[in-house]
C-alpha cells in the first residue's frame, strides 16, 4: 500500500512535469504578451509532427527538440505578424482569431499527413526504466521529462529575469506606453516573446510525442490542460506554472488512484473552478486590493 502510494506520488511528479512542459509556452504568451492563444494545443501538435518527420529522417528526440523549437517559433512569428499584432488591444478577440488559427492548422496538417495517428518513438538511450523507490520502476523517459520541465522553466526565468531582453520584456509588461517612450520597440518585444512562447510549445510537442499519441486532433486536450494549469497558478507570475501543474498533476494522479481516472479528472476540474473563484487571479497571481 505504502509502496503503491510512493509510486503514485512519483508518477504525479512526472504528470506535473508534462503539464509544466505543455503550459510554460502558454504562460509566457498569456502572461507577458497578454494574448490568449487558443491555438496553443495546435502549436504543440505541430511540434509533435515535426518530431515525427525528424524521426522518419532518422533523427531522435534530441534532434527534434531544437528543430521543433525553431519550426514552431517561425510558425508563431507568422501568426503574430499575420494576425495577432493587429489585435493586441482586444484580448477577447485574440481568442477567436487564434481559435481560427488552430482550426486551420489542424486542417492543413491533416491534408499533409493524413488523418491517422502518427508514430514518434523514444530515443534508445531513454528506453527502459530504473527502480527507485515504490512499487513501480521509473521510466528513464519520465525522468528525462522532469529534467526537461526544469530546464524549460529555468531557461524562461533566466531569459526574463537575467537578460537585457528580459528587462525590456518586464518593462513593456509593466507599462507599455512608458516603455515605448523610453525607446523600447514594444512591437518587436511582443513579437519575440510570442515566438519564444510558441517555440516552447514546439518543444512540448517534441518531447511529449514519444509517450503520448500523435494526431491532428491531439491539440485541444493539451490546450485545456495548459489553460487549467496557468489559470490555477496565476498568470503574471511564472511560479504559477509549476504550482498549478503540481496541484493538478498530483491531485489528479492521487485522486485517480483513490477513485478512478474519470472521477479524478472530474474532481480536479471542480477544484479548479472553486479555486479560481477563491483566488480570482490564480494562487500566485496578482491580488486586487479591495
Amino acid at each position: 500500500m505504502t509502496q503503491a502510494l510512493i509510486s503514485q506520488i512519483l508518477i504525479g511528479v512526472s504528470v506535473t512535469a508534462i503539464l509544466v512542459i505543455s503550459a510554460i509556452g502558454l504562460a509566457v504568451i498569456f502572461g507577458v504578451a497578454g494574448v490568449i492563444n487558443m491555438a496553443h494545443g495546435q502549436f504543440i501538435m505541430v511540434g509533435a509532427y515535426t518530431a515525427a518527420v525528424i524521426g522518419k529522417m532518422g533523427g531522435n528526440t534530441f534532434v527534434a527538440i531544437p528543430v521543433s523549437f525553431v519550426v514552431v517559433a517561425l510558425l508563431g512569428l507568422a501568426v503574430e505578424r499575420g494576425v495577432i499584432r493587429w489585435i493586441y488591444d482586444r484580448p477577447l478577440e485574440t481568442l477567436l482569431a487564434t481559435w481560427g488559427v488552430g482550426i486551420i492548422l489542424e486542417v492543413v496538417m491533416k491534408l499533409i499527413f493524413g488523418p491517422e495517428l502518427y508514430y514518434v518513438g523514444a530515443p534508445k538511450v531513454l528506453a527502459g526504466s530504473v527502480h527507485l523507490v515504490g512499487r513501480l520502476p521509473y521510466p528513464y523517459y519520465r525522468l528525462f521529462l522532469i529534467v526537461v520541465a526544469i530546464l524549460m522553466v529555468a531557461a524562461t526565468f533566466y531569459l526574463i529575469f537575467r537578460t537585457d531582453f528580459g528587462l525590456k520584456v518586464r518593462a513593456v509588461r509593466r507599462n507599455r506606453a512608458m516603455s515605448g517612450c523610453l525607446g523600447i520597440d514594444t512591437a518587436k518585444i511582443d513579437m519575440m516573446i510570442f515566438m519564444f512562447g510558441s517555440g516552447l510549445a514546439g518543444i512540448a510537442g517534441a518531447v511529449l510525442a514519444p509517450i503520448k499519441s500523435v494526431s491532428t486532433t491531439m491539440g485541444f486536450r493539451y490546450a485545456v490542460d495548459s489553460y487549467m494549469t496557468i489559470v490555477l497558478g496565476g498568470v503574471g507570475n511564472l511560479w504559477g506554472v509549476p504550482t498549478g501543474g503540481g496541484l493538478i498533476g498530483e491531485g489528479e494522479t492521487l485522486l485517480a488512484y483513490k477513485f478512478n481516472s474519470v472521477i479524478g479528472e472530474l474532481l480536479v476540474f471542480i477544484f479548479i473552478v472553486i479555486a479560481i473563484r477563491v483566488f480570482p487571479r490564480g494562487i500566485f497571481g496578482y491580488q486586487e486590493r479591495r
Partner: protein
Amino acid sequence: MTMRRRKFLKSSAATLGAWTLGGTAPYYFMRNIAKAAEGDTIKVGILHSLSGTIAIIETSLHNAELLAIEEINAKGGVLGKKIQPIVEDPQSVVQVFAEKAKKLLLEDKVAAVLGCYTSASRQSVLPIFEQYNGVLLYPTLYEAQECSKNCFYTGAVPNQQLDDFVPWIINTLKRKKFYMVGSNYIYPKETNREVKALLEKHGGQNVGEEYAPLGHTEFSTIINNISGSGAEVVFSDLVGDSIVAFYKQFKQFGFTADDLPICTPITTEQEIAAMGPENAEGHYTSFNYFQSVDSPENKSFVERYKAKYGKDAVTNAVMEAAYFQTYFLAHAIEKVKSTEADALIYEGLPGQEFQAPQGKVKIDEQNHHTWLWARIGKANPQGQFDVVWKSENWIRPQPWVPYLYPDKTCNFTDQRVKERLSKPWSVEKNRSGTINL
C-alpha cells in the same frame, strides 16, 4: 374604407407571394442540384466523418468503400449502371449524422448507405432509416444486443471475438487473472460484461476493472494499479488515441509481453503503426481479419489498397468489413434487380455470400449480422500480426449472447417479427427483430 381594404388585400397578397416564393425557391434550387447529378447511375451514400475526432478512423473506412466502388464500376457496375457514391461528412457529430442520413435518403434517394463507425452515430441514424425505410450497412465491430430491420451489421459481434479468445487466454496462455482496462463508454462496458461472464464460465478471475475518459493519454496510474493487482493478463478495450499512449507507457514502465501480455479485441495494425511495433510486440489481438492473413484475396486487396492510398497505408479489420460490405450491396442489387429497400432487406442482402480477404463471409438470413472468421494474432516486430490461432469454421453471429441473454434472440424470418414489420412505421415503430424465446 375602400382604401384600407385595398391596402390590406395588397399587403396580404404580397405576404403570400413572399411566403410561397421564399419558401420554395431554395428547396427547388437544392433539389435541382441533386437532380443534375442524377444520370444512369445507382446512388449509394457514404456517411463517414472526414473531420472531427473520429475522422482518424472513419477516413480509412471511407477509403475502403470508395476502393470497392471503383473496382465494381471497373468491372461494369451493377445492372449495367455505374455506382455513384454520394459522400457526406458528418463531422463526428451525432446530430449531423442524423441530418445527413435524412438528406441521403430523402433528397438523394440513395439505394443504401454505407456508413457510421461509433455506436453513438449508428444509434442516431437508425430511427431515420427505420422511419423512411432505408438500408444501412454498418462495418464496425460493436457491442451487439441490437438488430434492426434496416441495418446490416458486417463487423464482428462479441461472440465472434471473445467466445474463443477468453478460453484461449486461460487455457493456452495459462493466464487466469484478468485486469480490464477500457475507455469509458458503452462498447468497453458491454464487452467487459461479456468477458466477465466468460471468465466465470471458464474459470478465470477478474482482478480489476478500470475505465479512462475517452481520449485520455495518461496511464501511469492505471499501470500502477495493474502492477499491484497480481494480474496475469491485461484485457484492454481502450479505443483511439488511448491505445497508443497506453501501449507506449506500459512498455516504458518496464512491462513486457512475456510478463504481462495485453489482450484486446480492438487494437489493429493502424494503431500499431502509430505506436511503433516495438511497443506492441508480443501482445495479442483477436480479430476476424489481419493484414497478414494468407489468402489470395487478401494479397490482392492489400496490393490494390496500397496502390490507391500509398505504400505506407495499412489495412485492418474494420476497413476490410467496409470493403466487403460494398460488395454485399452490389451483389444484392444484382440479385433482386432492384434498389427497392424491402427487396434488398428481405431478399437481396440476407444470405449474401462473398469471398472476402478474411475468407468466405455471409450475411445471416435471420439476424442481419455477418458470419465471420475468428483469429488471434500476436504482434510481431514488423508491426503485423502472426496468426497464432484460427477458428476451424466461420462463426455464426449472435447479437444476443446466450450466456447473458438466454431468453432473447433475433430472427427476421420469424412469423411474429414479420407480422410486426408488415405494419407501417406510423403504426408500429418497433423495427427490431428481437424476440423473447
